[in-house]
């Protein structure tokens, strides 16, 4: 079976500094992978490179998505092909109403895949359903994208988009940052509702706490730009006790 995502020996530079020094990771459909590691280990860089953020130079290795060269695709093509990055810090876009943004984005993806655009009633019905399940009030959808949203609301808006776009691969970058325990639970429930045999998730987190709510199949520890240890969900608990220091020394 072909892997959904295959990162092979990936080397990435930002300006003159190499951040990833040969990172490899294989993710199959239906799996949930957690990537843990100390600050500066390259976790967010990996998520940005997969999503296509400008400013990163890939100097070696490759990233295959359904066997295709992901790095050759523009960011919007990656999204249309099923890659979704839930941002650690979702941006505020004043003047662009959330509803208008959601419709424009969804239809752009569908158009790129050669699918017909959603009709307005179907679209509204779908947004309302998902918004309700995530406890997102309708007036939030009328406001500018993320404008004046609390940290929890911004994260819920990311999950709303994830549910709407139905991506094959979800990358959650530090979803727990800035969330209190209640907000975290709502967000995690939203993510869990999207787990399916057709979809894979990569959950990037500094803390084990999030993994009590989103239980991974695999845990990888990153340090200094590489995966230094992989294991099952118990690895996260182990880290909670022993910390990252052992890996930083080993790397």
């Amino acid at each position, binding site marked *: 079976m072909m892997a959904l995502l295959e990162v092979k020996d990936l080397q990435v530079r930002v300006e003159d500094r190499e951040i990833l020094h040969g990172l490899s990771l294989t993710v199959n459909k239906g799996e949930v992978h957690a990537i843990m590691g100390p600050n500066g280990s390259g976790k967010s860089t990996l998520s940005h490179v997969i999503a296509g953020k400008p400013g990163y130079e890939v100097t070696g290795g490759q990233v295959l998505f359904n066997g295709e060269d992901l790095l050759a695709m523009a960011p919007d093509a990656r999204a249309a092909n099923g890659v979704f990055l839930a941002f650690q810090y979702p*941006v505020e876009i004043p*003047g662009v109403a959330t509803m208008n943004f959601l419709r424009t984005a969804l239809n*752009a993806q569908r158009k790129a895949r050669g699918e017909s655009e959603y009709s307005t009633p179907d679209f509204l019905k779908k947004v309302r359903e998902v918004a309700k399940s995530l406890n997102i009030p309708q007036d939030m959808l009328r406001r500018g994208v993320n404008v004046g949203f609390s940290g929890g609301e911004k994260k819920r808006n990311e999950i709303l988009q994830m549910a709407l776009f139905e991506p094959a691969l979800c990358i959650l970058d530090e979803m727990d940052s800035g969330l209190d325990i209640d907000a975290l639970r709502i967000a995690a429930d939203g993510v869990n509702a999207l787990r399916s045999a057709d979809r894979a998730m990569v959950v990037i987190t500094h803390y084990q706490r999030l993994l009590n709510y989103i239980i991974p199949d695999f845990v990888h520890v990153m340090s200094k730009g590489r995966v230094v240890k992989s294991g099952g969900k118990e690895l996260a608990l182990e880290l909670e006790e022993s910390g990252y220091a052992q890996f930083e020394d080993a790397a």
Partner: protein
Amino acid sequence: MNVALAKTETERAVNSVFAVARERLPGSGKVAEARRQAFDAFERAGLPNRRIEEWKYTDLRALMREVLPLAPTPDAAAIKRARAALKTAGVKRATRLVLVDGVFVPQLSDAADAGINVKTLREALEGGDRSLLTTEPSDAMIALNAAMATDGVLVSVADGASLAKPLQIIHVATVSKASVFTRSRIEVGNGARVTLVESFVAADGAGAYQTNDAVILSVGDGADLSHVRLMADSADAAHITSAVFAVGARAKYNLFNMTSGGALSRFSGLVTMNGEGSELNVNGVNLLKGTQHGDTTLVVDHAVPNCTSREIFRAVVDDRAHSVFQGRIIVRPHAQKTDGKMMTRALLLSDEAEADNKPELEIFADDVTCGHGATAGALDESLLFYLRARGLPEKEAQALLIQAFVGEAIEGIANDDLREAAMIAAQRWLEARA
């Protein structure tokens, strides 16, 4: 120094343009004399150039090259083409007054609604009313307009009238290599409520024409005027509008101007606050690409105390286009408690795009609140990436952000149909760019 020798080719051409057109211009006797005097005033001043402060960034000697001969009176074919252009230029549910190539065309226009009186400039000039050919404020292009104006509309809205429908004055150009001179006067009576639209469009096939328009507008005491101007001339056209606005007491005046067409466009306005307790909101948008040059120059003169003025300008400049915004707020010595602010922001979409912002405050009173701000910059990369990561192709992502940027100025338009018309005009510009 021999002044005649200092004249440019352009100015000699203008002289012959006037000489040739004279016989065709409406009005005789004192009116013809007023035109001759206006033309003399223009000749003395010459075409505005960069050495004249108000025209520093829009040097007509360099940008206009030549003044084209007066456009012929539109024939049946021209009127048919103009009619086709009205399909997209017309605002929903508006009463239309249509001028084609500088001539009022009754068969394309609607009958005036109750409370509005409409005459044409031609009728008034032929009737000997020379007061309409004023050359104040002193400016060469206003003088040239007085000399050459062929027609326009004279609209007066009765005191207390509340117009149910917007009144739209549509200028359609069908010509190439010809110039159009129009002059209109709008009088909004005391306590009247009016929505006014002025649209400038080109018929299919119109090319490098020149438009010189003058507007004299007054807002009566306690009146409420919402005024939208859409300058969407042909890509090769040059358009200069000079406008004077007088605002009475306790009045509310909202003015919105958008420039999205034309090789060279300038909207220059002087708003005088003549009565206390009035509120002025001026919003403007320049959407420029290619080698377009768009200039919005506005002076707000607080001649009396206790008035508020707000100005919001947005310029979107692509390719090698050039946007100019000059805004001046004058507060006269006794105009205490004036509250005047302007904010201008330019979005530069290419390395070669240029935006000149020149805000000025001239404050002679001591108990006022006045301020201005100006910014220029590129689209925010982090916002662009967020949109692209959600599936929007680059141009679409940019378009969404540009719409939001200009939306801040467009939102000020109270009438739903007009706000939509302005948004559609902006979208057309964005689609042409993609």
